[in-house]
């Protein structure tokens, strides 16, 4: 699941996860930037504003590699559906928006497989920005792309940076065959599209057979972690 901050993808993933689990399907959820291995380094870099576009990109790929080897790949091999809130495409969008070479960053992530389905939640910039600004008290320095020096004003910088990220996502639609979901639609209509796309790729798929959960579905595995 890809899209800029405030595109509504987390809501959609949550609904999808519950729907799949209700059917007794094994689901593993993995979130961007959430591995223990580089957590302290990420915190240090962010609080001291030490990152350059290249070191930021490399550290996030380290994080992803750690999750890839320890969580995503073993889960896939075991026959589990992995739902990823952001995947390598996030790096391709953000890091290139920050100015790194597009081919270089693609090469960096070449150890990971192409997903069976990549959904891109496309939402007008204003809608996403409004959601973020109304729901969160403060946008953080790197989230706002303040490191790019686009504007001294955080909100302005955030908007400009998100636009650059959208441009990169749009370029990737054909390159990676994203299934585009119009994020301006209602939550229900989006979820309907998401479910039917997922249904299609799950046709004839067996996977790991799980017992149906009793009562409230409890996650078989869930990886904690900070928000991106």
């Amino acid at each position, binding site marked *: 699941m890809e899209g800029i901050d405030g595109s509504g993808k987390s809501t959609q993933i949550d609904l999808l996860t519950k729907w799949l689990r209700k059917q007794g399907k094994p689901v593993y959820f993995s979130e961007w930037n959430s591995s*223990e*291995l*580089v957590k*302290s*380094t990420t915190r*240090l*870099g962010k609080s001291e504003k*030490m*990152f*350059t*576009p*290249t*070191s930021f990109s*490399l*550290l996030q*790929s*380290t994080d992803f*590699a*750690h999750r*890839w*080897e320890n969580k995503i790949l073993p889960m896939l091999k075991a026959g589990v559906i992995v739902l990823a809130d952001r995947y390598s495409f996030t790096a391709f969008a953000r890091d290139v928006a*920050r*100015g*790194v*070479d597009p*081919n*270089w960053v693609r*090469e*960096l992530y*070449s*150890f990971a497989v192409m997903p069976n389905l990549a959904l891109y939640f496309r939402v007008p910039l204003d809608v996403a920005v409004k959601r973020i600004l109304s729901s969160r008290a403060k946008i953080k320095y790197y989230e706002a792309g303040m490191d790019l020096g686009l504007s001294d004003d955080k909100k302005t910088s955030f908007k400009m940076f998100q636009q650059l990220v959208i441009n990169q996502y749009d370029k990737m639609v054909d390159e990676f065959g994203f299934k585009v979901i119009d994020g301006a639609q209602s939550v229900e209509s989006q979820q309907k599209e998401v479910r039917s796309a997922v249904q299609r790729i799950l046709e004839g798929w067996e996977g790991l057979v799980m017992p149906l959960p009793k009562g409230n579905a409890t996650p078989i595995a869930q990886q904690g972690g900070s928000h991106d």
Partner: protein
Amino acid sequence: MTEPKFYGAGFPYKKFKPKDMPGKLIVLEGTDGVGRSTQIQLLRTWLENEGFAVSDTGLKRSPLTQPGLDAAKLGNTLSPLTMSLFYATDFADRLENQIIPALEAGFYVLSDRYFYSTIARDVVRGANPDWARKLYGFALKPDIVFLLKSDVQTLVKRVVTGRGFDHWESGMDIHCADNLYDSFCIYQGALIEQFAALAKEFNFVEVDATRTPLVVHNDLKRKIRSKILAKS
């Protein structure tokens, strides 16, 4: 350095002009225990005596990644892949925040290893050689790279009389053997082979490091005089 050149795309978000880097980047490569740090110290003193400003750097010294890398190396969480990427982060941070600014200020930068060492280690640990090279497309080409060459038996002697056998320097993370000594010999032997290949690919100036430190130093001095100082 007349004009900054990179192995790949470099840093597209930074614009360098020719003559932006009047300094010189001198790299000392070689396996563990080959005497790199001793030679760096000797070169530093010599260059400063000659009137040059000197800055030195080495693997894992980035203030951004050092605490995290040290912690990761204590546990069993670092795989060959995450090790490659974490070390690349260290290298990128030092290159952009230490090495390049020093070169711009006209310093002689002495680098205790560069990214070639990490490529050698990554490939010995099973990384795709092509992937490992492309990872460093942002790396600046040094003015000169010396490869301090030794053989496993000489390395063993240095380790035995020095700091002893180390888990990582012996490649114990990839289980070359069931004990540190055998593992060290196998692992360092594989590294030496990798360095021999890298030397051809990246035009290293090879130096026999089995000789005494002073003889090696005089050799390095002579080569720096003719290949670097004479041209500036």
